[in-house]
């Protein structure tokens, strides 16, 4: 039993933290919230030079061949820094979908470009009910002489505007088992018939409504076997859930540190407020949530990396970390009180992101239902 990162992972963590402290200050994070594109190209090129987009891509496709757990270490630091930009959609959603579903040819074509930072991807999955279930996907892909024609409306597509390709989940046949009629397509973002509308959200992330109106996709852009799309998507969503947990853990850890520091410095009634047990107990509760969240995320990430069956552990992690991050940011605000309520403070950055991360890729209720199924209920 060993619950610690290995030496290389500790080095990666330290390197990523130092890099993000100098290259991704909070002023940049704030500026990007209102920026149309949402990320600075220069920063993207720098992380590409560090090999981050290709960290967990196999060597033969131009990556570093790290494990999913390595990626989780990096994502914790990104969550800590509120890293702006299309890393998550490109690497976690896009590259994972191609790794799961793509042919060798497609992998050779796409993955090296992702690894060197030259290509951005996203995932167009959710529709009008905004659920991560196959039943209500009604976007249709119909075979035609040039390949497929896709029509439908997708919601909450991250960084759609800048993505070179969208992995689009569409229905290719109407059969009674709805899981089986879905297929994945790699849709060129510049195709005719696509309209992007930004969605303003609590976290200032770049989320879009994407309307596809008779978008033609060539046959070689079908990913994996037709009708098997949900089978691949389940695996992508599992990675996405753990990756989101990692971002939350990094953010929660930073909120805890920031809050502890404030409690040591802030003096009221002639003493630091951190000397009051009421404040100490809030901090202890936050620390317990942070440590529990980190352990359960690492367990799920480690199991994924080892190829062990872990549907239950992933759902447990997403349920627990979603709730825990919410509690941590709420208590952090309680201790910071007025100063944390001011828009220039860092606390709001985390509070708003915590809520987004909580509901995206399955909230706690959704995840607990998966746990219930895994318990045999």
């Amino acid at each position, binding site marked *: *039993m*060993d*619950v*610690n*990162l*290995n030496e290389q*992972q500790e080095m990666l963590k330290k390197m990523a933290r130092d890099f993000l402290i100098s290259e991704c200050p909070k002023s940049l994070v704030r500026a990007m919230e209102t920026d149309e594109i949402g990320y600075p190209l220069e920063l993207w090129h720098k992380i590409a030079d560090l090999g981050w987009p290709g960290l967990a891509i196999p060597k033969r496709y131009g990556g570093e061949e790290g494990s999913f*757990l390595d990626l989780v270490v990096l994502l914790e630091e990104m969550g800590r820094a509120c890293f702006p930009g299309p890393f998550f959609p490109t690497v976690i959603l896009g590259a994972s979908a191609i790794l799961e579903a793509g042919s060798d040819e497609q992998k050779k074509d796409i993955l090296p470009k992702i690894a060197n930072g030259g290509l951005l991807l996203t995932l167009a999955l959710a529709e009008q009910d905004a659920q991560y279930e196959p039943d209500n996907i009604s976007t249709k892909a119909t075979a035609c002489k040039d390949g497929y024609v896709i029509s439908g409306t997708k919601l909450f597509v991250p960084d759609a505007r800048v993505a070179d390709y969208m992995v689009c989940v569409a229905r290719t046949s109407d059969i009674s088992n709805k899981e089986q009629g879905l297929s994945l397509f790699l849709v060129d973002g510049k195709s005719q018939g696509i309209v992007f509308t930004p969605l303003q959200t609590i976290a200032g992330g770049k989320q879009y409504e994407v309307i596809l109106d008779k978008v033609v996709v060539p046959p070689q852009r079908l990913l994996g076997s037709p009708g098997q799309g949900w089978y691949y998507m389940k695996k992508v969503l599992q990675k996405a859930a753990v990756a989101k947990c990692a971002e939350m853990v990094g953010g929660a850890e930073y909120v805890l540190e920031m809050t*502890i520091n404030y*409690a*040591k410095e802030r003096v009221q009634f002639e*003493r*630091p407020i*951190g*000397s009051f*047990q009421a*404040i*100490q*107990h809030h*901090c*202890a*509760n936050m*620390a*317990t949530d942070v*440590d*529990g969240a980190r*352990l*359960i995320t*690492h*367990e799920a990430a*480690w*199991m994924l990396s080892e190829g062990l069956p872990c549907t239950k*552990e992933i759902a*447990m992690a997403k*349920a*627990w970390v979603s709730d825990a991050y919410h509690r941590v940011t709420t208590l952090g605000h309680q201790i910071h009180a007025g100063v944390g309520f001011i828009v220039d403070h860092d606390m709001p950055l985390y509070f708003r992101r915590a809520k987004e991360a909580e509901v995206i890729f399955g909230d706690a*209720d959704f995840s*607990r*239902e998966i*746990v*219930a199924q895994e*318990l*045999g*209920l």
Partner: protein
Amino acid sequence: MDFRFTEEEEAFRKEVRGWMKKEITPELRQDMEGLSWIRANDKPHTARIREFGLKLGSKGWLGMNWPKKYGGQERSIIEQYIVVEEVAFQWIVIPNHYAVSMEGPCILRHGSEEQKMDYLPRICRGEVELALGYTEPDAGSDLASLQMRAVPDGDDYVLNGQKTFNTSCHYADYHWLAARTKFDVPKHRGISMFIVDLKSPGITIRPLYTMAGGRTNEVYYDNVRVPKENLVGEENRGWFYVVEALDYERVMTFLPAPLQFMVDELVKYAKETRRDGRILAEDPIIRQKLAELAIELEVARLLHYRALVMLDKEVIGNYEPAMMKLFAGEVAQRLTNTGMQILGPFGLLQENSKWVPLKGRIETGYRATLMHTFGAGSSELMRNIIATRGFGLPTR
């Protein structure tokens, strides 16, 4: 990173489990039912319980990580934990659990050579139990303010004072006693540890019956003479031994294992029970509640194993055992309360009713786990430790 036990450890677990299946007869289970840690219930040990302890000893499963010369096996603390955990899964206890898990390790680190040769082999053989002697009427959370006096007199110390909530004194062989030996110093610098024969003249033990159906004790010392060689470690250093042993107590006693047993039983109950014309497990509220219990237990397990690995590597965790105990204690209460909600009126029934579900263990657990948030250090103290020792918040 590896969240598994090693293959050797898993093989050992299998061996222990197989042995338990054979050794735990219905009669022994009957004797032990009330003894499970979750009830904090201590009847005097029956002959069967004593025999079970001796058998564990003859297997070499007590004091496993101690040196061979003191009766141990020089195996890892993880393997000792596996025995403790497997016993807890069976809803029973190691008859001399405190000696094995708390006092033994402390004697090993701070005791004299004579003490090690005297007590440790007997603990390893399952022959003796040492009861904790810390709490006093005016020294609860503020344990360092204890007033039991030990005054040197010739070859002895003479002890006077009162202890309370000293569980298992009515059947243990020795008292692991904290007493004051210096009076003109800060309170935590004047405490010493003694091993006292509980049959010594001048000791009076009176029962306190708990709402969990168990027994703890008040213990009175009236001019009790304790030989000087029974002082453990250095005089006036006792407080530091107490604090150290508390980490062992937290890790070795507040296990998630019996809670796992309860969640498994509740899941089974939900799958087999019909209410309002449908299986309980089909109710989305029940599904959410049971899933949440399973998740909380997983977090408790992980916090627990982290603290255990630190003990194994002899890293003294500055807050990890406290965090694990805080979390597990609160989970135990939420679990039994949720269990009561799921069982409804049947949850009210006690273990001898013909209608009782799950042998009444949820009902007893519901009463017993109240203790988990104040026994072995209250949740508030755990939070103080996490905040001050763990994260450096100022004490004033």
